[in-house]
């Protein structure tokens, strides 16, 4: 029979196993801008930013199969609900709350494979004050955020990214999309620089260092950005930003 100690130990090992696999993941930044919600990351060949529903977007880092399972489940839930009731009833909070128990169950069940993924969900509102963000962990735990949300390979990296964004955004004015793109890439670099710095407090990198980190990363990867457009009349707010729209800030 399993003792409580065994259970604790098993969970700890599972968490360690997952953290190890997440550590090298490319961070994702989501940020409320005046034009809408900007999502930004640097990717290899796989797409990382996805549309879930009319006003909802999703991004994750981790293992592809698990990301795909989360993405498809979120889309299934959103569309079944949107059709059964109305598109206005599909909110990001409901989608995350619907996914969370299954993720927690997979994590806690010693006979099931846990989901190796950290995910970010965003919903664009009519104004930046009504934008919603959620981060969902591999253990099913989720947190709501306002104005911005980040996911990265480690909690330390996420802290660095939030610190970087807090400094850039200052007193709380909502940035334009143009400013947002610059802030998002800086924050990405801060998170990327802090990867593998688990446990120990990394020194926040200076601006020049961040540019160097970004430049280095872009030799192999490419910038991917998407916008949940606040003002479009189209029903679907999500669009991937074209290359020329993402490049302007990287002089």
């Amino acid at each position: 029979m399993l003792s409580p100690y065994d259970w604790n130990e098993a969970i700890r090992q599972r968490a360690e196993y997952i953290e190890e696999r997440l550590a090298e993941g490319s961070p994702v930044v989501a940020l409320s801008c005046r034009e809408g919600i900007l999502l930004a990351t640097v990717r290899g060949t796989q797409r990382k930013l996805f549309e879930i529903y009319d006003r909802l977007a999703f991004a994750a880092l981790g293992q592809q199969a698990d990301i795909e399972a989360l993405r498809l489940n979120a889309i299934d839930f959103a569309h079944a609900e949107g059709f059964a009731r109305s598109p206005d009833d599909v909110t990001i909070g409901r989608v995350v709350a619907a996914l969370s128990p299954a993720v927690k169950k997979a994590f806690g069940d010693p006979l099931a494979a846990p989901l190796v993924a950290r995910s970010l969900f965003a919903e664009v509102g009519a104004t930046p004050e009504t934008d919603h963000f959620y981060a969902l962990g591999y253990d099913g735990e989720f947190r709501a955020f306002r104005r911005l949300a980040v996911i990265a390979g480690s909690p330390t990296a996420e802290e660095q990214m939030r610190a970087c964004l807090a400094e850039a955004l200052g007193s709380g004015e909502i940035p334009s999309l143009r400013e947002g793109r610059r802030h998002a890439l800086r924050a990405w670099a801060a998170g990327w620089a802090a990867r593998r710095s688990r446990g120990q407090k990394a020194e926040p990198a200076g601006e020049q260092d961040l540019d160097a980190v970004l430049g280095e990363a872009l030799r192999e990867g490419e910038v991917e950005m998407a916008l949940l457009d606040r003002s479009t009349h189209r029903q679907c707010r999500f669009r991937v930003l074209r290359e020329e729209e993402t490049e302007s800030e990287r002089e």
Partner: protein
Amino acid sequence: MAALEHCPSGDFLDLLRRREHPFAVGAPVRPVETGQPLIEAHGTTVLAVKYAGGVLNVGDRRATSANAVMYDRAEKILEVDDTTLLAISGSYARALEVVRYLRHAFHYYRRTQLQEMSLEGKLSEVSRVVAQNVASAMSGLGAFLPVISVYDATRGEGRIFFYDGLGARFESEEWGAAGSGAERIRGAFDYILKTKGRFRDMSLDEALSEALVLLDIAAEMDAMTGGYDKVLPSAKAVSAAGIEHLPEERLREAVSRIRRGA
């Protein structure tokens, strides 16, 4: 959600079936037991004509039940996605449900599969919902027929498709029409083609004038079709630029052009 199971094919009907949604599972249709079959009476006229650059759809706004006018602001030209218009005739309730279904089905496919559903795929999806409705329509409830207008980017032209009650699809060269008034004005379409040339060579405003005249003729011959005197019809166009909702102002100008005989 007990486990993370999902529907990998991108088939929205399959998703609804798994969740036992009534749209997919279908309510059992009971044979009509009374001597009088239950027949919904719906009248309307919707029409689609090509113009240089795309397809224009015009529909009257009248909703009827038997010989009562229920509503004079019904919207019968509906956007399914950025390049697809659906004009409905027949059971309004069922048609609206089908449009809601198609909107979700097209988006669902695109979002799960990360690619746009092909035009052929979309047209088959429409066939499928029409065919699925046969049993219900045969019992006297919920019969509807759609006219689909799309902008085909690979060919660079607008295209019009219409369906029969069993879901067979036909492509039309110049125009499509459906509803109780449509049958009475078939000859008028031909007359325009033979005396004024092809619709696809007309400008949007020329096509709009012709379409409004056709609708007015339908309204005169069919009591269940509203014309343009009391309430302006709805008019939408689909072209390379997407779907354009023609404003009332433009329709009012077209109507006054017709009245002046210009």
